[in-house]
């Protein structure tokens, strides 16, 4: 079995457009949340959202490569280019070696909506143009990046709701561990437009604290009232230790374990048993004990039941050692398809710089979240091993354990 390491990472998020900006935002507890006034026109319950600027790729990519990229594809391109640079991988290497891509994505709303609006109005499909099909499929990110980067290895998208990109990393880890691939570009992209969030808003799942946007995302806090939707993209380069050694790459971390489970329960209400099984499976896979974990990056989205059940699951497994816990969603909002990968990057930045980023807006615990050791402010701390949880609709759960490479 191969050891699996991480040799590159890149990020385009609401708290920074590159690794350096994100590091500072994490350390200083900056929020990326604001208001989207269009949502009011659309009749949303909540106009709160992560705020991000669309990158302009006109000077980076030829037209044919740009027209297939949807919003989250653009974010993913930027994050992936930073990750490849970080890993010391250039186009020449990609053309000469077999590199794969496994990316999390679970929607692409705007190109679907715009195409159908046009068909309904004009009754002529030829007027949709050539880009819409490649923008509108769920696999839009992997199908575009694999062409742009001339990839010749494994190539598909993983859709596992809000655990999509955590599962993508898990799957890539398994493939490399088994010796089937040497290098896989992994990550997740998340669109952030109003159209893609309407049906979720309709479930009353979002915080309505519009008077104080940066205070709205309050994971684990007693007064939490729902999540804040967000997005962007995050990419990590997974590689076998042998491959990294061969090309003299800088090793940032090691992936020690992947756990997964399905709740077998409600479509939107999480439970305790499913996450507990994912946590246990991950610890077993890594060959580690609960007390070996220095930091947990929780899934905690700030929904009343979700945070309570995750707190119960963490307390059940880690109650004895009480490692530091924070939910970076307090700053970023819920990055959904991207969240698993971005939260691995946030945690790796913390590990690299020896601090635990704050769970901002954690002002008062409740009966269950009070049992956890939640970092309500930035804590200077050496992290050797961290764990990251991601859960999604349908009761899909994913857990990753990542450590400093030794």
């Amino acid at each position, binding site marked *: 079995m191969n050891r699996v390491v991480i040799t590159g990472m890149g990020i385009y998020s609401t708290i920074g457009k590159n690794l350096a900006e994100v590091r500072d935002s994490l350390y200083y507890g900056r929020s990326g949340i604001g208001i989207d006034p269009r949502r009011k026109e659309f009749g949303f319950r909540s106009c709160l959202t992560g705020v991000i600027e669309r990158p302009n790729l006109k000077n980076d990519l*030829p*037209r*044919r490569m740009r*027209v297939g990229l949807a919003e989250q594809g653009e974010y993913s391109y930027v994050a992936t280019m930073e990750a490849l640079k970080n890993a010391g991988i250039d186009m020449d290497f990609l053309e000469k070696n077999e590199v794969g891509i496994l990316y999390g994505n679970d929607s692409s709303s705007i190109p679907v909506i715009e195409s159908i609006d046009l068909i309904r109005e004009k009754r*002529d499909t*030829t*007027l*949709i*143009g*050539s*880009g819409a099909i490649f923008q509108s499929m769920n696999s839009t990110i992997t199908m575009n990046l694999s062409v742009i980067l001339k990839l010749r290895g494994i190539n598909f998208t993983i859709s596992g709701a809000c655990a999509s990109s955590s599962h993508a990393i898990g799957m890539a880890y398994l493939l490399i561990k088994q010796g089937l691939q040497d290098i896989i570009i992994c990550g997740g992209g998340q669109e952030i437009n109003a159209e893609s969030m309407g049906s979720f808003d309709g479930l009353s799942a979002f915080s309505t604290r519009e008077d104080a946007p940066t205070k709205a995302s309050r994971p684990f806090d007693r007064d939490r009232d729902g999540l804040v939707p967000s997005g962007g993209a995050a990419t990590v380069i997974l590689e076998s230790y042998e491959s990294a050694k061969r090309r003299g790459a800088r090793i940032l971390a090691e992936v020690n374990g992947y756990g997964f489970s399905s709740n077998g329960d409600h479509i939107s209400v999480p439970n305790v048993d499913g996450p507990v099984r994912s946590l246990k499976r991950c610890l077993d896979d890594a060959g580690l004990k609960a007390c070996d974990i220095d930091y947990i990056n929780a899934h905690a989205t700030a929904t009343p039941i979700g945070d309570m059940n995750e707190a119960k699951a963490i307390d059940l497994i880690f109650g004895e050692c009480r490692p530091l816990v924070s939910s970076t969603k307090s700053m970023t909002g819920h990055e959904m398809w991207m969240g698993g990968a971005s939260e691995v990057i946030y945690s790796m930045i913390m590990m690299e710089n020896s601090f635990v980023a704050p769970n901002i807006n954690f002002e008062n615990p409740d009966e269950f979240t009070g049992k956890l050791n939640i970092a309500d402010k930035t804590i200077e701390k050496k992290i050797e091993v961290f764990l990251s949880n991601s859960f999604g609709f349908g009761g899909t759960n994913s857990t990753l354990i990542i450590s400093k490479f030794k």
Partner: protein
Amino acid sequence: MKPEIVAKVNEFLAEEFEIETALLTPEARLVEDLGIESLDFVDIVVIIERDFGFKVKREDMEGVRTLEDLYKYIETRAV
């Protein structure tokens, strides 16, 4: 050849398809010289309807090989 047709076609090829204007000569072959590929013809159909106001059948474009062919095709169809 109507100069306004030539100007409009060259303008969309330069702006939307990012083709260097120096390459836009009547004898330039769309695929071999200008780098237009099969998927791009889908977008050319959309632009012709937008700029010249008539519907293009995809099969009409099969005989269009050079830029001059394209100008002529548009001239015969445009009202």
